[in-house]
């Protein structure tokens, strides 16, 4: 993809060229996307407004509430990692794979985390749920058998304003068990 170069000042060194439009080439839930965007475009706005996947929510927009949590692969190490997409530039994940809440269910079957939230009343209004589930998945991929305390610590960056934490923790415990038993990850 051609880059639009913007010469800020006269210079012969290409290394000092800076860009006003940047490429974002990502795979979201297995589908490839490629766009030229302003560098200030945030990942959450890219996912919601450019790609059109609105399951990822914007809550506080200040990296506190976690509603915008998605998984990104290979930020460091090889694994999937939970990040707050309101506090990343879309271009920071150029070339990476992303997983959002829409990518969890396979062939019409809910992911164990989705199922567990349903069965354990892990959501009330549901606004925090996509972020809660993605954060929980990020935690379980790193620690498949967490204690209750470790679950609380893991989702401390996700706020539920219905304050339904007890059932959220219960849901994550149930999902962890099913994922271990069935060998399910993502």
């Amino acid at each position, binding site marked *: 993809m051609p880059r639009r170069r*913007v010469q*800020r*000042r006269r*210079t012969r*060194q290409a*290394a*000092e*060229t*800076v*860009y*006003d439009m*940047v490429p974002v080439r990502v795979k979201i839930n297995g589908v490839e996307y490629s766009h030229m965007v*302003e*560098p*200030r*475009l*945030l990942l959450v*706005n890219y996912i919601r407004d450019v790609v059109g996947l609105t399951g990822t929510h914007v809550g506080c*927009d*200040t*990296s*506190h509430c*976690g509603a915008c*949590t998605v998984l990104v692969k290979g*930020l*460091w190490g090889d694994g999937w*990692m*939970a*990040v*707050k997409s309101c*506090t*990343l*530039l879309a*271009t*920071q994940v150029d070339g990476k794979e992303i997983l959002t809440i829409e990518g969890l269910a396979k062939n019409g079957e809910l992911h164990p985390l989705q199922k567990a939230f349903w069965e354990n009343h892990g959501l009330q209004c549901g606004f925090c749920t996509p972020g809660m589930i993605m*954060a929980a998945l*990020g*935690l379980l991929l790193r620690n498949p058998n967490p204690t209750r305390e470790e679950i609380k*610590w*893991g*989702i*401390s*960056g*996700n706020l539920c304003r219905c304050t339904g934490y007890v059932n959220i923790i219960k849901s994550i415990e149930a999902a962890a068990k099913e994922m271990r038993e069935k060998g399910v990850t993502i």
Partner: protein
Amino acid sequence: MYPRKFSYVAPSRVEEVLRLLKRYGDEAKILAGGHSLLPMMKLRIVGPRVVIDLRNLRDRLAYIRDGARAVRIGALTTHAEIELSDMLKREVPLLPEVARWIGDMQVRNMGTIGGSLAHADPAADWPVAMLALNATFTIQGARKRAVPASKFFKGPFTTVLKPSELLTEITIPKPPKGHGWSWKKFERKAGDFATVNVAVIAVPDGRGQVRDISIAVGSVNPVPYRAVNAEKMLRGKRPDSELLKAAAEAAAEPAEPTSDLRGSAEYKKWLTKVMVRRALEEALNRAGITVEVVQHA
């Protein structure tokens, strides 16, 4: 919320970063994990003309290396990498513990130690730990220089870094085997910045006495400080509960906290004493030094 418009570049060589910094000076901002910079840009507290993203430099600047006398940590190493490092849990257990308390899981996955240090928030956690551990920072600019943590922080959000310079590495001398340590961070709610944060490294002499001790206190002054008077009171001593109390008082002496939403100045000053005393108790206990409890009649 959108940041102001800026131009962007993600170089893959440190030399390019330095050339860009030289060219754009304080019109440019370095983006590491972005978890201090991007919130400020979104709130339009800062509006750099150029953002220099270091994401293509992870190969060069993200590492944790074990050496004979020191561990070296690349500036782009994330809090989570430090939190999860088995080598650090063994050699400098204070570091993974400090990391564990920063922000939340998602923030720790992105935020970097170098970014946090260069940002120099007076309530940040790494600066306090770095002071207690006598860390040294490697800075690259027109020339390479090494600055001890004690000389690095100049004021709130201000360090000795010049606009043309980049923090590249943190060197941490290994505390002796058998040392005791403590990290006491008081936060109002999970993931918040500290109201007070205290780091202690205690080295026992093997005969129940304190051979060496370092106490660093953060969030209550424009920059974190070493409680040198309290350290003097404890060195070479077999501490009892009275001495710990006196040392905690001495450690809180330089604190001049301001009243804000985390509490009144008076409360924070009192809290500083409490947190230092708790940190001392924990560190001495881990160092195998028994603290005699003095009973009053």
